[in-house]
């Protein structure tokens, strides 16, 4: 059918890729960028290497953590007392503590952050937005020690105690999961509000106009048009923020107490995995002792737990992502 056969292979044509500075530059840039992306994989591999060599197998003469403590004990024992004379290595209390606090933080931070994002993007005047957004971002820069103290000297005595203890009759300890969760929640607000606000504002104005033209209220447009179109960025901000809450260390070390309790009572003191890790690594535990090695086992567990979580959330996110134009 075609009248003209294509040029036979081997004969170069005017549209061939050929050497030029421009092409070389393109390839180089691509290569460099790929290297940047692979760096994150390298980081993970190094982390896993460091954690595994200390917890799973050991190359030195001393035994690794899991060569001394069985997986069964680790995952079923309900006590975590590596530094007491009566040693127990049950990770459950630390897991519970971690997720109790991260959960409270998410309950506080996600609604507040998202609502602030919507306010800034859809309701606030540019002047207010340009003022409030950077101000809220200061929250991300306050040293976490300060959050810990804030929980201890403000949240517990002036908010939790009057309300939950004096009014509702709960017993609120000085150190408790709730106060730590609340301040961590406040700490992650800017991450959610700023990133979500960017995502919301990147939604083309024409979509809003289309929404209004169909008789939408501002609420309809914000929730049913803009929010779904920005869901990818919003979900990403949630995941980052929740990850931060799980990984947060200093504030919970100060505010949540350091008692590995297997409890879901937010008014008791608990210990998180991170608090334990920081404690061991900056204390007087001799390096090489089983207590010291337990920190790697804890870190590895945390790593795997968050990895599982991320797989799940990623699968969910893929399903809900909407792309425009």
């Amino acid at each position, binding site marked *: 059918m075609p009248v003209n056969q294509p040029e036979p292979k081997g004969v170069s044509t005017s549209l061939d890729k050929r050497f030029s500075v421009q092409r070389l530059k393109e390839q180089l*840039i691509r290569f460099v960028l790929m290297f940047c992306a692979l760096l994150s994989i390298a980081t993970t591999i190094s982390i896993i290497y460091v954690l595994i060599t200390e917890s799973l197998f050991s190359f030195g003469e001393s035994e690794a953590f899991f060569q001394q403590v069985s997986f069964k004990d680790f995952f079923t024992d309900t006590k975590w007392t590596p530094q007491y004379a009566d040693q127990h290595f049950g990770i459950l209390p630390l897991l519970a503590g971690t997720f109790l606090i991260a959960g409270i933080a998410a309950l506080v931070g996600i609604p507040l952050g998202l609502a602030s994002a919507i306010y800034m993007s859809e309701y606030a005047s540019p002047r207010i937005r340009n003022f409030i957004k950077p101000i809220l971002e200061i929250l991300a820069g306050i040293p976490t020690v300060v959050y810990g103290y804030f929980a201890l000297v403000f949240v517990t005595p002036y908010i939790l105690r009057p309300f939950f203890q004096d009014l509702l009759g709960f017993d609120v300890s000085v150190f408790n999961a709730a106060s730590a969760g609340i301040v961590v929640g406040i700490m992650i607000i800017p991450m959610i509000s700023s990133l979500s606000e960017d995502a919301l504002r990147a939604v083309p104005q024409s979509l809003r106009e289309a929404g209004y033209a169909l008789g939408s209220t501002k609420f309809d447009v914000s929730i049913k048009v803009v929010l779904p179109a920005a869901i990818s960025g919003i979900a990403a901000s949630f995941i980052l923020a929740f990850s931060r809450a799980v990984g947060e260390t200093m504030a919970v070390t100060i505010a949540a107490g350091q008692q590995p309790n297997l409890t879901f009572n937010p008014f008791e003191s608990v210990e998180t995995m991170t608090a334990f890790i920081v404690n061991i*690594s900056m204390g007087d535990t001799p390096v090489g002792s089983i207590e010291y090695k337990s920190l790697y086992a804890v870190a590895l567990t945390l790593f795997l737990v968050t990895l599982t979580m991320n797989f799940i959330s990623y699968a969910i996110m893929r399903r809900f992502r909407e792309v425009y134009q």
Partner: protein
Amino acid sequence: MSNPNQMFDSQLAARHRLGKVFATICFLSTWFSFAALIVMLGTILWQGGSWLTWDFLTSYDSRMPAVAGIKAGLWGSFWLILLTTLFSIPVGVGAAVYLEEYASKSRLTRIIQINLANLAGVPSIVYGILGLSVFVQMFDFFRVNPKTLVFPLGIAELRVPLPFGPSVLSGALTLSLLILPVVIVASQEALRSVPSSIRHASVALGATRWQTIRDQVLPAALPGILTGMILSISRAIGETAPILMMGALVFVAATPGNIDSPAQLVTDPQGVMDAPFDSFTTLPILIFNWVSRPKEEYQYVSAAGILVLLIVLLALNGVAISIRNRYSKRARW
């Protein structure tokens, strides 16, 4: 056809009410967060305001609260954040560009994606452990035979010790790894929100992929990228545990490279070259230390330290914030 209209009319009032409630919730949420910040800042200001003097900025730490200062921490943090920014922002944005604009949606990219979210949740102290073995000790490669590489650069010599030891450089690299996930994910989302029709239009004009990214996509994504940068630099400047873990000092009566005035940054090239390889302390470490000291006055000293930290933070972010404000006119495409 009157039925749907009736429904519309009858529900309109309720919808308006819902809208008002929602708007109020959003409004209150924002100002609640603001209030939380004000309470914290207020307390800190009240405690530390009067301790924030010029002497405080220009003297080293001391066992006596009255004369304790943050000079070492101020310069340490300055160098640390400067280097962290220099490493993490290009690498982070580059990785995001690669993942969004170049990589095919293969399994590898998916793994990288999940991996990134996961790295964001690794506790900072673990990065400290990592930084210690990778940068500070370099897997003991140079254990028996530490070296210093010397590069003559005309006006000054660049002397790179191997391993890096507990230097500013090691700290900055550690912090860079720590904040990279946030920089990358935020940048990725910003890139993703640029409509692909813009890319199509550019490519159709004969622009290469990189030209399209550089001229069209990155400028449009800039506000979001800057947000990621602001958030992660804010986090980096306040981090304590990983830096302490990897061997930063607490008490040191010297500044990196012995540079202790802004003018020296220009007049002392050798100091600038040396600073990254020097030992250091940072503002949050000093604050952390002061907070746990028995003397009550240290509480005020640490409050003053926090104020300085926040001022430094605002100054650093100020540039990014103003650029972002300028670029973030609503996209109308």
